[in-house]
């Protein structure tokens, strides 16, 4: 049972890393970006291709996946996303769906529609088991994921809460116009945040390529999960999405393990129930401008 909990936590952590960029961009610019999964897919493919074709070790690939996705995110933000910030939501939804379709079809065209396999290094493959019976705890690759994600979460929390950039970001999220009036260059803040968010998604995609499975439909398959994390967690802090991601991860893994017949059913019902109960998300900070 602990193993399920542990797997759930790892899965949730992974979802959090994948979705946190989306939460920030949605909160910051009120932009509904359905194409976030495409950046995660880019990160995943960078890792897979570098490892297969160039033989670069897994650990070196991770930062490269981050950089690649971040560069792409920054480029797209500057060229395509920026004109759309003040358009209606319908335009944003259409645009990002279009981008997702293009990403899916291009990945299919250039790389092929088969699921990619990540060759993990030997030291990650082992499985450690502690305890016995119902309380047996089996750990493997998940331990590594949890460690990396926890480190990233702490780092993110530090950046957001303690650094100057973090306070600028929070100010821009709360009220963009006043922040701009105070001399904060909101455009630059947003560009770097978008690039960071895309980079994190890329890193998440690289880390999760083995657990989540990587094929060209990745952005569509996981889009709903990212959106659940953001919608349920709220966009005003990173604790909200973190808790939502953990909840979702555990519910999903436990649901699939105990009642496989119902499958993803539980997750969706839970989401709808929560959203009817609290339309703005579970964790809303008072004072921010919605």
């Amino acid at each position, binding site marked *: 049972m602990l193993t399920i909990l542990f797997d759930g936590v790892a899965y949730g952590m992974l979802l959090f890393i994948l979705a946190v960029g989306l939460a920030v961009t949605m909160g910051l610019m009120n932009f509904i970006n359905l194409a976030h999964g495409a950046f995660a897919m880019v990160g995943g493919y960078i890792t897979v291709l570098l490892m297969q074709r160039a033989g670069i070790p897994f650990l070196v690939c991770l930062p490269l996946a981050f950089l690649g996705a971040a560069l792409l995110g920054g480029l797209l933000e500057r060229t395509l996303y920026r*004109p759309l910030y003040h358009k209606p*939501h*319908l335009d944003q939804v259409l645009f990002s769906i279009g981008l997702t*379709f293009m990403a899916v*079809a291009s990945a299919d*065209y250039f790389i092929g529609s088969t699921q990619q396999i990540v060759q993990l290094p030997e030291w990650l493959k082992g499985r450690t088991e502690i305890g016995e019976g119902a309380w047996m705890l089996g750990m493997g690759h998940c331990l590594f994921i949890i460690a990396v994600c926890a480190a990233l979460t702490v780092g993110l929390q530090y950046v957001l809460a303690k650094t100057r950039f973090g306070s600028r970001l929070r100010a821009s999220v709360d009220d963009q116009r006043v922040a701009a009036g105070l001399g904060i260059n909101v455009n630059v803040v947003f560009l770097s945040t978008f690039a960071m968010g895309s980079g994190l998604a890329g890193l998440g995609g690289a880390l999760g390529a083995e657990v989540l499975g990587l094929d060209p439909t990745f952005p569509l398959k996981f889009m*709903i999960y990212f959106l659940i994390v953001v919608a349920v967690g709220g966009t005003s802090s990173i604790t909200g999405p973190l808790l939502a991601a953990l909840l979702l991860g555990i519910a999903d893994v436990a649901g699939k393990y105990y009642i496989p017949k119902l499958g993803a059913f539980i997750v969706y019902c839970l989401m709808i129930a929560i959203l009817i109960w609290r339309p703005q998300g579970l964790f809303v900070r008072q004072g921010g401008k919605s």
Partner: protein
Amino acid sequence: MKDSLNPLLVSRRWKPWEAVLWVVALVSPLMLPGHALIINEIAIVALFAVSLDLILGYTGIVSLGHAAFFGMGAYTAALFAKLVMPDPTVGLLVAVVVATVLGAICSMTIIRGSDLTRLMVTLGVGLILMELANKLDWLTGGADGLQGVVMGPVLGRFEFDLYGRTAAWYSITVLLILFVIARRIVNSPFGATLKAIRDNRLRAMAIGIPVTSRLAVIYTVAAGMAGAAGALLAQTTGFASLDLFEFHRSADVMLILVIGGTGWLYGGVAGAVVFKLMQDVISAITPQYWTFWIGLFLVVLVMVGRERLLKPWTWFSRGGKA
């Protein structure tokens, strides 16, 4: 004569070109006998798009889960034909009723919250239904789809033929009937209040429009119409599959509506014609990657500005607001 100054009445009157359009539509299966199948599909998709237009174009609800009602109608019609009786008209009515009830239940979920919340809830409902259709495989055939649906003749007289001519007429007739109803709705005072809600919900509330009930009613009506479109598809193809609930179907219908123009009932019809023909041409060139071109089209469409697409003379002048 004073009445003609009332914009509600002017927009309600049938124009000559509308009558011509419908006559052409009804004659088209005769003129193009080889293309009756695609005419049938266009009519179905047009009905689906018109139903989305009621909530998206007229009321301003961004929904990514409209395929839920489409699929519900399709499965209901197919199951009804298979298990109860093969008469298409009764099946169509049953499907509409079931989809309407589902819409009434779901309308409670879209009343509150922001655009994002609504997007998520509508998407979630679609996914739940898809999951249900997948898991209840003793009833729906699961991932293989529901096969072996045999339809009886329409009104007991007109058999469905292999070339789809009866199917095309059947679908166009249903489209026409529901289109007239939709036209009646949007041009009524009720429709005017919907537009008021779309433009400014707060002010609409302030002048005494019961926003919640209006949203619920129009969402329910749109669900019923989407159900009718789904039922037509299932009846004319004799098949229902999980694909009906897929996300891309909701996205496609949104694209269709946007191509034709939102907030205009003929937008759905025009978009359906353009989209289906485009899909036919592109998928004949690159069968596997046509989603790429659809995606590119969407991106360009939004970049150019979707209200400018149908007005080519504004493409090269810099708009004051855009």
